[in-house]
């Protein structure tokens, strides 16, 4: 709450200053204003582009003296299925500027998606602006996939070394594992056991630990200047939430399902329950889906919003171009970065915590019903 208030007041201050700068700019000519507007548009596009996954791993770009964009980047492999597997380098697209020709077929990128086109690269939009071209099945190794692979390797070697250090060091963690062991224990003792219970928490531990570190590491990677935004991608959060959903419902006990389809139990006669259940059961069934859905939206929206705020503040520096505005934006961006470091951990914690809570519902035993009857 305090952070929120602080954030609000800082924003107000920033707005006020924008006003001052704007008033000064007003005196300048209209041509300059439009240049500024162009810059704003460019920054907005840059942010939107950054938030999305990309077909190549660009580190930075600049405009050279001749006025053309020069990118410093790694091209990544494009893998598509279009009447047969086609693999080629993303450098063929030149950032979506050109049409890629592979085995006599032409492909172009429109709105960050690959479409099949003709040699000229025509995209025919429908009345809503969506492309009507054939979109081949796209399994490209995008920037997001590279980041996931990196996290995969990092986590595997990190925790493998922690596990090995126990064997080598007589049951005591050594090296970097000393930092991660308390976190592993925290997840077990303060997330898994209180929510799921001493008896059943073991079978969910692997997922809880993996998802916590996976989300945390990817969130932290998103704060690096590499410009990775994996946990702010709906496909990634959908996958994680889907696994929580499947684990919850596939390991659900008899009591869990009884709670959904017979929430009142034996507290009421069956004929009294019928009118209530017409409303209650759909709500409970909907709840099965809403719970993981909230997980996927929460993580996506938080990470997305964090990136937008941070990048907007960095963008403000270039819009202000003044002694007062730019350092202020920098200070703000720095402060928000610190908050984002906290948010990165917090979102990982919340995702794990709520997953554990849902697993707890799924593995509930009879004592819960006794409590209801006691009311």
């Amino acid at each position, binding site marked *: 709450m305090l952070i929120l208030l602080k954030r609000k007041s800082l924003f107000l201050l920033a707005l006020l200053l924008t006003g001052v700068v704007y008033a000064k700019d007003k005196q300048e000519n209209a041509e300059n204003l439009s240049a500024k507007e162009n810059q704003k548009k460019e920054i907005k596009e840059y942010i939107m582009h950054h938030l999305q996954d990309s077909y190549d791993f660009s580190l930075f770009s600049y405009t050279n003296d001749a006025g053309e964009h020069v990118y410093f980047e790694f091209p990544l492999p494009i893998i598509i299925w279009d009447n047969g597997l086609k693999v080629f380098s993303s450098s063929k697209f030149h950032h979506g500027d050109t049409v890629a020709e592979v085995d006599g077929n032409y492909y172009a990128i429109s709105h960050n998606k690959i479409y099949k086109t003709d040699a000229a690269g025509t995209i025919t939009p429908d009345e809503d602006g969506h492309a009507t071209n054939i979109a081949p099945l796209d399994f490209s190794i*995008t920037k997001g*996939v590279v980041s*996931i692979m990196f996290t995969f390797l990092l986590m*595997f070697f990190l925790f493998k070394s922690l596990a090995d250090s126990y064997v080598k060091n007589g049951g005591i963690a050594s090296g970097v594992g000393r930092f991660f062991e308390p976190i592993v224990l925290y997840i077990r003792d303060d997330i898994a056991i209180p929510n799921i219970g001493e008896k059943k928490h073991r079978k969910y531990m692997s997922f809880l630990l*993996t998802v916590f570190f*996976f989300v945390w590491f990817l969130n932290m990677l998103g704060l690096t200047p590499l410009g990775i935004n994996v946990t702010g*991608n709906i496909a990634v959060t959908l996958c994680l939430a889907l696994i929580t959903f499947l684990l919850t419902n596939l390991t659900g006990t008899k009591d869990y399902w009884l709670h959904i389809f017979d929430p009142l139990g034996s507290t009421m006669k069956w004929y009294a329950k019928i009118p209530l259940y017409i409303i209650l059961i759909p709500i409970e069934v909907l709840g099965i889906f809403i719970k993981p859905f909230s997980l996927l939206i929460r993580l996506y929206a938080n990470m997305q919003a964090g990136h937008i705020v941070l990048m907007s503040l960095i963008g403000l520096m270039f819009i202000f171009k003044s002694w007062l505005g730019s350092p202020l934006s920098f200070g703000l961006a720095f402060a928000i970065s610190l908050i984002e470091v906290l948010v990165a951990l917090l979102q990982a914690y919340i995702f794990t915590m709520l997953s554990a809570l849902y697993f707890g519902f799924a593995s509930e035993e009879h004592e819960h019903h006794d409590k209801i009857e006691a009311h």
Partner: protein
Amino acid sequence: MEKLLEEFSLGLFVWQTLLFVALLLLLKKFAWKPILDAVNERETSIKESLSAAEKARDDMEAVQADNKRILKEARSDRDALLAEAKTASIKIVNQAKEDAKAEADKITAQAQETIRNEKKAAINELKSQVASLSVDIAAKVLQTELKDQAAQEKFVSELVKEIEVK
């Protein structure tokens, strides 16, 4: 919502699912299971060590209590022995005193007996000597003073009557 659907990329979803599930299974086998097992093992060993230490302390206390009890018993034994010895010594002393007294009494009695016997013998001796002396004296007196037979005899019998031996 439409924007969300538009943003959704099947390729990334498939890759993410594949990689995440693979990571989950790999970590489960190579990391989480060994880590949690090691931690559990360590925790149980700590618990066991603590309870063992507790037990050792209890044992120690029991041993100390035993020692104290034994010491106390020994002390009371000693006290009892001392008291016994004291009474025994008093008894012995008393016995000795009594014996000595009895002996002394016996010796005294014997001495008195001897004295009495000696006295009797001395008296008898004295008597016989006195008698013989008296007879001698009387004989001499009588020889000189009594010439008359009758007077003599009368006189002697009177004398004899007078003499009373004590």
